[in-house]
């Protein structure tokens, strides 16, 4: 009995004075990952959208995303950061099966209206013209030994039934937009008013109140075989203007854009990305992540897809 009491007292004392909270033991994360190529390749049959291939690579856990660069320009030291993701010395070849097209690395591309073609590979010639139904392939190799290939089937050119559209669009109108069916391909319809790009699009309908034009901006994902959409501008928000009403009127146009895409493009950007995105991984400490999907790419991750466009615009009337 005495031994029991002494043992308990000792244990109580020990438990009270000792610090048993284990200290965190930090260790470096060792990941058995060899970098691989991460490709974004888009073939476009449209004259306004340039075909391009972005060649990036994955980074190991111990690699920084940016490389510190020091340049001397006109005697001044200029510090900048270059992305380590970008592969600048790859050999990129896109092939139709009968002809190969060598893509060149460009830091930036002239006449790039949206400014999204920088540090990318483009074809400088004029004869790149993918046609619907053609199978195109991609080959990427790097001096470091990384390589990847890709394949895409060019979708049919989308066709809006423009003759069935009205001559103009009234802001309170309901309009049927129709197009030619593509039984094997997804499409995407985007509608937006031109003046919204300049934030110059108040639509006053009542004195003292202005309505946001956001209701023009709408998008519809089109399943294979679908051919019609009833479009109507939404009233998104009502705001009360204090002071003078804005009676400024500017000519405006309703832009309708119909885009066709191959299965790779649809899977990467729509089915598993964008609004349909379903993050594969989420962690309190690491945030969100993914295993790196690939559609149309072998030997690496990313996407090699092809798209087509048809466009129309209508004057907007009030």
């Amino acid at each position, binding site marked *: *009995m005495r031994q*029991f009491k002494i*043992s*308990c007292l000792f*244990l*109580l004392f020990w*438990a009270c004075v000792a610090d*048993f*909270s*284990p200290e*965190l*033991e*930090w*260790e*470096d*994360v060792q*990941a058995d990952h060899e*970098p691989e190529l991460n490709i*974004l390749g*888009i073939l476009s049959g449209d004259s*306004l959208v340039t075909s391009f291939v*972005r060649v990036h690579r*994955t*980074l190991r*856990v*111990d*690699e*920084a995303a940016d490389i*510190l660069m020091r340049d001397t320009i006109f005697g001044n030291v200029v510090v900048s950061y270059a992305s380590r*993701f970008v592969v600048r010395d790859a050999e990129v070849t896109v092939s139709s099966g009968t002809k190969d097209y060598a893509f060149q690395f460009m830091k930036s591309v002239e006449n790039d*209206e*949206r400014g*999204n073609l920088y540090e990318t590979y483009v074809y400088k010639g004029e004869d790149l013209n993918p046609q619907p139904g053609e199978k195109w392939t991609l080959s990427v190799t790097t001096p470091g030994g990384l390589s990847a290939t890709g394949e895409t089937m060019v979708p049919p050119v989308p066709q809006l039934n423009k003759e069935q559209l009205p001559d103009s669009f009234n802001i309170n109108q309901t309009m049927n937009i129709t197009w030619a069916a593509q039984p094997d391909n997804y499409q995407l319809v*985007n509608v*937006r008013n031109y003046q919204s790009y300049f934030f110059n699009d108040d639509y006053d309908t009542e004195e003292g109140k202005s309505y946001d034009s956001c209701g023009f*901006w709408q998008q519809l994902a089109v399943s294979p075989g679908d051919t019609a959409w009833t479009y109507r501008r*939404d009233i998104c928000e009502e705001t009360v203007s204090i002071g003078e009403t804005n009676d400024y009127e500017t000519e405006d146009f309703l*832009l*309708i*854009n119909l*885009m066709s895409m191959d299965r790779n493009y649809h899977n*990467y*950007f729509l089915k*598993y*990305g*964008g609004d*349909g995105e*379903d993050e*594969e*991984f*989420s*962690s309190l*400490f*690491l945030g969100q*992540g*993914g*295993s*790196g999907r690939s559609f149309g790419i072998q030997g690496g991750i*990313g996407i090699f897809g092809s798209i087509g466009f048809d*466009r129309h615009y209508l004057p907007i009337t009030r």
Partner: protein
Amino acid sequence: MKKFNLLLFLFLISVVFAQEAATISGFVRDDASGEPLAYTNVFVKESNIGSAANIDGYYVLTNLSAGTQEVVASIIGYGMETKEVNVQAGQELRLDFRLKRTVLEGETIDVFGEAQKMRQLVEPSRVTLDMRTLETAPAFVEPDLFRTVQMLPGVQTLNDFSSALYVRGSTPDQNLIMMDGITIYNPYHLGGIFSTFNTDAIKEADFHAGGFPARYGGRMGAILNVINREGNTEKFQGSANISLVSSKILMEGPTPKFMKTKGSWMVAGRRTYFDQIINAFLRGSKETTESGFKFPYYFYDYQIKVNLDLTPDHRLTYSRFYGDDVLEINVSGNEEDYDVYSDYYENRKSRFKIEWPWGNHTNSLTWRWLVSPKLVARSFIASSRYRFHFDMTAQEEGDWRMGSETGTYRDQFSFDFFDIVDDRTLETELSWHGINNHQLMGGAQLKRVNYNLGMEFEFSNLDTTIFLNPLNMKDQTVETSLFFQDKWDVTSKLALQLGGRLMDYSLHDELYFDPRFGLKYLLRQDLSLKLALGRYHQFLTIANPEDETLRIIDFWFGLPADRPATYADHAILGVEYLSEKNWLFRAETYYKHFENLITLKQGELFTEETDQARFTPFNEFDETRAYAYGFELLFKKTAGRIRGWVGYTYAETKRHIEKHGWYYPRYDRKHTLNIVGDVAIPIIKETYFSTALQASSGQPFTPPLGRYEKWNASHDAYMPDWSGYENLLVGRKNSDRLSSYFRLDIGLKQKKQIFRFPYERFIQLVNVTNHVNPLTYQYEEKTNKLTGETLGLKRAAVPMFPFFLTFGYRIEF
């Protein structure tokens, strides 16, 4: 045709003999308390007529010849009793037994008659736990049923903070947890650290890890049926218990005798007391008194059970369980501001309140009727209500004065999130021993469940109130089941259990049939071979994220009409050996596969319908299927100075979702070893040393591999745009493993007496070696402090329980 005629002849002969043969039936009870003694062996001396008492202590002996018979009742731990009776031809005699407990000095006993169970029960994978077994293992703070079950082979744990049961690849929602037959939907306290069952009130817990018979249905995984004590029919007694977490009290006794009725009652309650102690200290503090702050959390539960024998053949049992976890925060403040320059004065009151109760409320009424000695009818009506209700309010109001102007304001925001599951069940069951060598059972169950999951926001000020109800999911489902089973003693060595369960689910148009097959073959009297096959449908599930590490509440809902019923197929093969000294050895192998499972998509939470945002986190699921297989060894010693068991499991579980392919779920552990022991210390009287060792393979996790850029497309009417954003690159889901798990707990318990009242005191050490068992990994970037350049990633294990000590006292009166 000939075989059919032979069977018919034998059947008719048995009916004829049955009319001539006598029957003896009755109840076997503990003489001191009146509690039924299940699995007591009752036999006729110098004959091969015998039977084991069922869970109610009821036995039936049939085919007795007329004349004097010596009937014996025997079970280990009790003195054998023999009664001589004279039966007439065709007589049905009622003969009850009351056995006296015999305890050898320094030895503990297990009253469950392992030998009888091995001979009588056909289904494998079944373990019965009594209160002594629950007390065998050192407890985490206090004895807990689920934590003891977690140490059986085939049962996996998620982590130290969860008492949830993952059984042979099944998740906790696939297990049917019952208390006195009532379904319990959220059987946890303190976010899963404890189960909701007060071990003091438990008589026994019947655990089927798989292959359970047709009388159970509606779940794909395991069955845990907790039977509460009935109460002492002879005298009033009780016990009180205090540990570091809660205080408990139990009282039981006979019901008042009224018009020849007899019965018993039991009341048990438990409550945490930390809040009371801390609040008592806080009352002395001016700041906390003014703000109204109190320790915000407590849990309680209480159970009532009343048994009433209206006549020797009719018994009514009322059972009730109420248990809640409550989180309450209520703070308020009062402030005054004055600005001299602008002559602005404001008097402001603010209040912040959270009320969050969650728990189970159940009630049931059971009527047991001995229609005849061979026919027992049991009817049961029950309600089980699980709810959690998170209610948060933030309010600010005040008045202001500026110069000659005055004003008042009031802003209030409230948020309500609730899930209510209301289960009403009506059930009836018939057991019939009318045919030789057959124990027939059949029954029907009607279960109506209402689900109500909702979320409400309210913003209000003096002028305006905005109310949003973005989540509103209500559903009612009805499950109707018919079951039939026959335990057939084909020969003295071979027994078959054939059965089936026919189910109708109100949201589906088809009927579902679950066949069940069990076989037991006695290779020797102490060695048996068992086989079980069956299909198990389930019509409800939970919408909790699959990868959550800590689970506080469950979101239950019924399968919608457009979802097929989930089901699993079990195949189990096992061998059991029981030595003369009551050492049980069991080896089992199993295979299960699951179809039509659904896993909550852990992504988009908001969807837009017309022009309103709706929060619908439970409407997107991944189609899932799974399989599990394994091999288990159990070595159990049930009597003597040393008791306990050693369990080893080799298991693999995999699930499949299209986006991940086949992967290991978080609860998959390849190897698990559990050693649980309790030994009476010879040199110190009435002192027991207990130990529990758990070692297992590490759990799966998804490893980070590096970084990559995820491509994003912006589709616009004018010109599309493509860009990339940095994203974490991870390996395949759960393709890596945390380090292995190891934990050793030890305990000391001593029994004493104070003022002639027996009491126990115990001290327990959890994780004696202070082994760091990782819950998950915490990550940080390594950066160059001067340039900010990333140098890599480092990680540290977030630990589960460290070493700590608990103690407590228990007194009986």
